[in-house]
């Protein structure tokens, strides 16, 4: 039987259920942000598992990179999508959900039992040797000797990803579309432009609607005080009728 320390067992029995709950929650949560948060929980638990299993560096990297950076970017996008966006529950293929769950559980059971049977009488070896010079140093020596090529080639992956992100997300502006701060200021002060902030709508005893224009000093309505996006419409007779607000409701 494998000798597992007391502390490791405690950590495992606390965090393992949490990790599983996080994974289930991630699949079941209706709200995309909640789903991402459940995933964060799972990843965090995994990070702690790595640390407990004598891989402190990889555990920390899991937390910093996956939980701290990647999931954060995920959240970033989800928040921009909007907090009320939920998954549509309409199935395009009938019975797809049931089939997917059945197959998924089947695969899980298959792999799980296979893994259990494959590892039940294994004795782990080599951990002490791998961490002989320290965990970080051991990793470094592997990366820079045996897997140096794979490590270097990863840079190709990163460059492709960066180029891809640029292609798919960056719209190049044409020369005439690019306006700097200085040009914008100049434009603002050109003749015919009003450089100051626009006046707000009028607030009167009879109306405080945004559609009511403010009044200029000479008593004319200020056109700038109404937003151009407000639609124009005819008032109905009932709206046009005197509501006697000025006379306190009494008909004179």
């Amino acid at each position, binding site marked *: 039987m494998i000798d597992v320390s007391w502390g490791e067992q405690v950590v495992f029995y606390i965090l393992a259920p949490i990790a599983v709950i996080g994974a289930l929650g991630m699949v079941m949560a209706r709200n995309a942000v909640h789903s991402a948060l459940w995933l964060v929980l799972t990843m965090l638990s995994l990070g702690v598992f790595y640390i407990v299993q004598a891989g402190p560096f990889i555990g920390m990297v899991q937390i910093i990179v996956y939980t701290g950076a990647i999931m954060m970017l995920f959240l970033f996008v989800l928040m921009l999508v909007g907090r009320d966006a939920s998954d549509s529950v309409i199935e395009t293929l009938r019975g797809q959900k049931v089939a997917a769950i059945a197959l998924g559980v089947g695969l899980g059971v298959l792999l799980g039992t296979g893994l259990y049977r494959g590892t039940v009488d294994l004795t782990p070896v080599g951990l002490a040797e791998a961490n002989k010079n320290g965990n970080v140093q051991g990793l470094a020596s592997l990366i820079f000797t045996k897997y140096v090529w794979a490590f270097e080639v990863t840079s190709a992956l990163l460059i492709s990803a960066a180029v891809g992100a640029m292609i798919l997300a960056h719209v190049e502006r044409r020369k005439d579309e690019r306006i700097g701060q200085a040009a914008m200021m100049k434009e603002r*002060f050109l003749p015919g432009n009003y450089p100051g902030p626009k006046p707000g709508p009028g607030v009167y005893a009879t109306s405080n609607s945004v559609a009511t224009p403010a009044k200029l000093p000479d008593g004319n309505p200020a056109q700038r005080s109404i937003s151009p996006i407000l639609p124009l419409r005819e008032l109905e007779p009932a709206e046009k009728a005197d509501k006697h607000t000025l006379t306190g409701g009494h008909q004179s």
Partner: protein
Amino acid sequence: MNPTLADFGHDNGWIVALKVVGVFVFLVVMTLFTIWYERKVVARMQVRPGPNRHGPFGLLQSLADGLKLAFKEDIMPLKADRVVFFLAPVISTVCAFTAFAIIPFGPFVSIFGQKTPLQLTDIPVAVLLVLACSGLGIYGIVLSGWASGSTYPLLGGLRSSAQMISYEVAMGLSIVAVFMMAGTMSTSEIVNAQAKGGQGELFGFEFTYPGWYVLLLLPSFVIYAISAVGETNRAPFDLPEAESELVGGFHTEYSSLKFALFFLAEYINMVTVSALATTLFLGGWRAPWPITQLGPWVNQGWWPLLWFTIKLLILLFVFVWLRGTLPRLRYDQFMRFGWKVLIPASLIWILALAGFKTMNNENLPGWQRGLWIGGFAVILLAILLWPRKRPAPKLPLEEEVAQRPEGSFPLPPIDLQVPVSPRAKRITADREPVQ
């Protein structure tokens, strides 16, 4: 005998508990103190007295504020996501406290007869723990912004997530140089590595250089310091809570204890990054040079706690100083600065350092070293001094004014004499006319 990595993990349960409580108390007290300290220093800079009503020098002001904050009404916005709204400040605070676990306060001390290092714990990747905690701490801010269900907090949350991720990269890269010099990521051993200076040789002169990495790795320290300010959302990088744009940013909708937790987390984060800077660059708990001449006792027992705290307070002063002096950056300039200046500078500096270390390891002859260093410097200079497009020649003011199109807004004459305000007449009459 200084504590090394092997000395950790042997403490009794009650000593560990005592240390945990100690760190907690230290942080809370530091927070209360820093709030007072900040208000006092800023007040001094603005030529006013600052808090001076509660306790001696107003020292109890922050305690009173904290109590008042706790008794405020706790408001839950109607559109808030209740669970996440509650979790966010908790995440912030927990992460802030956790990061402090690996900060070394001093060497071995004796606590009730038990000899133990004055540090809660240490692990081989201790510094990464701080980075991980600060990475997770962002969740608190982002989630609070999202869960409030309102626009300004959401914008604040988004800003902060972008900002902190960007500046975390620069921060991580600046620390890499320390790892390379110290050969370890454990905080206690990094402090040990700065204990002794080394023998250097330059142009035939032999000299002893000090061990503090702030001197050896000055570029790293500068980058760390800048990104630390960005990472803690402090002025001039306090864009997530820019009052003029976003009301209160991510914590607009928070009140009472939840707000207090954010407040706490922000100040603890400040203390943490300062403590980490002390540990990584300023020799940790070790006394600085003139004091070390007094005898070996200055670096033994409980004394180092004093040096550590003094260094910490000096760094905190810099934080306050920045806040008191600098205006807030524009958001796009701030992000551009992070990605296009700090990170490339970090990378080039790491490359240079790695090259230098390799040259030392390979024992290259002097002329080859000169060649490499010279080549590197030439390339660097060429990049920095590459001629840019010359801007159009600046016209004299009169011509520029003459070029303005018809119907432009009138300009006041350049030699305009502003008449003196009648109310100010009495004061100006005594003054010599400016000529």
